[in-house]
């Protein structure tokens, strides 16, 4: 029983990180209609920038995260301007390859600047809390709470504000959005800004429980793809629920099925779901 609860907590922690990453990915998917393979690299950049801000410039954790969100968001914007915007009329395969090019570049860049080795991100929330024989570290609680807060804010933003709705509108018809007076370029940039920011938040929250290194994005990106497919691509609730499904299936799968094959569990789950429902769990209506 204790184990079950501890593992549910673990699943919640990791699911929160997945959900944040998947959200950023799904937002961009909605606008671009391509899976942004470079999203993992943004996640990685987020980790490094937060780390650098803390270690080199001595900023406080939260301040460092803020800087990181802005910088990575801007990298996202730059990516949109320099690469995806020129490719907006190209067939979808092209964006994928271009994204791979960016991914290769950013990873090499991180390695060039910060070296290829592992770094540790310090956190002011290192305390361990023992409750009812369960272990909660402050950082892990923080991950869960912060992730949920970010997601609620994002949801409100998209649903309740015109600017948010313009992101959704544009994801459905770019010309249409243009015709009602939405500045589509600005919305595209905004989306990338948010997407990059989400990646930076996710990695800054998660890095203290893992490590910062050039390949860290690869840990989450493939899973993020599983999630957005699971949730129906472009679907925001889908990304969140998918993130938690994956988090739980990993922690519970590792406990009750097999640790070695726990990655396989998630992927097989996906294959089964897609076999039954070829457009994902939360695919929206329309034809």
């Amino acid at each position, binding site marked *: 029983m204790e184990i079950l609860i501890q593992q549910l907590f673990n699943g919640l922690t990791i699911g929160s990180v997945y959900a944040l990453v998947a959200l950023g990915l799904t937002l961009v998917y909605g606008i671009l*209609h391509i899976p942004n393979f470079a999203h993992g690299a943004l996640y990685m950049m987020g980790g490094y920038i937060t780390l650098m801000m803390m270690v080199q410039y001595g900023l406080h954790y939260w301040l460092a995260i803020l800087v990181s969100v802005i910088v990575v968001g801007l990298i996202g914007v730059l990516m949109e301007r320099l690469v995806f915007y020129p490719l907006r009329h*190209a067939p979808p395969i092209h964006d994928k390859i271009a994204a*791979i*090019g960016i991914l290769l570049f950013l990873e*090499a860049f991180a390695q060039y600047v910060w070296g290829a080795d592992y770094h540790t991100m310090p956190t002011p929330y290192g305390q361990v809390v023992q409750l009812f024989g369960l272990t909660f570290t402050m950082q892990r609680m923080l991950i869960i709470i912060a992730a949920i807060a970010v997601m609620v804010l994002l949801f409100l933003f998209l649903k309740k504000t015109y600017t948010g709705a313009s992101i959704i509108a544009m994801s459905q018809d770019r010309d249409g959005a243009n015709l009602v007076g939405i500045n589509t370029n600005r919305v595209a940039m905004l989306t990338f800004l948010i997407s990059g920011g989400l990646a930076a938040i996710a990695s800054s929250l998660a890095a203290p429980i893992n490590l910062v290194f050039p390949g860290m994005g690869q840990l989450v990106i*493939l899973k993020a793809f599983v999630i957005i497919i699971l949730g129906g691509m472009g679907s925001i609730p889908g990304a969140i629920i998918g993130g938690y499904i994956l988090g739980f299936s990993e922690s519970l799968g590792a406990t009750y099925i097999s640790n070695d094959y726990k990655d396989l569990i998630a992927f097989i789950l996906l294959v089964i779901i897609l*076999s039954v429902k*070829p457009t994902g769990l939360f695919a929206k209506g329309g034809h």
Partner: protein
Amino acid sequence: MEKIINKRNIILALVVFAIFFPFVTQNDYFIHIMTLSFIWMIGVYGLNLLAGYTGYLSLAHAGFFAVGAYSLGILTVKAQMNFWLAFVLALIITSVLGFLIGLIALRTKEHFFAIYTLCVGYILYLVIDKWDSLTEGVRGLIGIPAPGNIGPISFETPLSQYYLVLAILLVVILIVYRIVHSLTGRTYIAIRNSENLAQTIGISTMKNKLEAFVLSTFFAGLSGALYASFVRFIGPDIGNIVITFDLLTYLLIGGIGTLSGPIVGTVLVVWISQQLQFLQDYRMLIFGPILTLLVIFYPRGIAGSISGWKAKRAERKLAKAQMDERFSQNSISAENQVKEG
């Protein structure tokens, strides 16, 4: 007519060049790289048939490549089977697996198909990685034999392997050429253009997609089996998604949906990345942007751009030559039905 002769000449010249290449360079390393390139090309043709002509982007191809390679490796190393028997079996295994996976995967479309196959590829990779007792896991399979003799011809030396792979590649190209220029090819292209419409004009899309998918995995498996017998060591990493991305890069840079794209792209990218070796750890710093820029500025790939340019010229000419005149002579040829290079 003139155009066809030209095209033939170019292809002939390329073949002749490929045949004499080893004598020209005398450089073992070039021959090695070239042989590897040929092997990749076979896989790229497989991908092209599916992604380029049928419109289904599979990201599982490294997985099938690995299945081909591992089937050959396991059958020869562990089961001590005769090389060519194992080779044929490896192709059959890959194709059957492709058939089974295609049956499910092809129910999904577009990006779902891409990501679905991404996951399938990852599962194949994980299975190879984790199933130690069969695949030796991360340790990899060591000591895969070179292709066995065919009659008096042996394939022990790099040079003979070069020619073996070249011959197989030429057959693959011929097959792809014929498919693309047949009713079957038109059918695939129709599916790529609009699946709904293809169905209403009576095309069994599932059957055709599956056919293309299996053929495509067959080529991936062929490529993998050749790879295993050429490098003679394989590890699970050959099934990694990175390899799929590599193949895709070759295809896209060369020109997706074109016949010469796989050749052009593979040679070019392999060559560029070898040239960038001197940059060592930072070569991706250059290669990444090059890749992105090429995609932006040559969206149809090299071959696609060239044929696009030619098509434009031809169109202008055509506009002058009265279309209806030709029509009355019943001679609209299917010449530029397939946009290709």
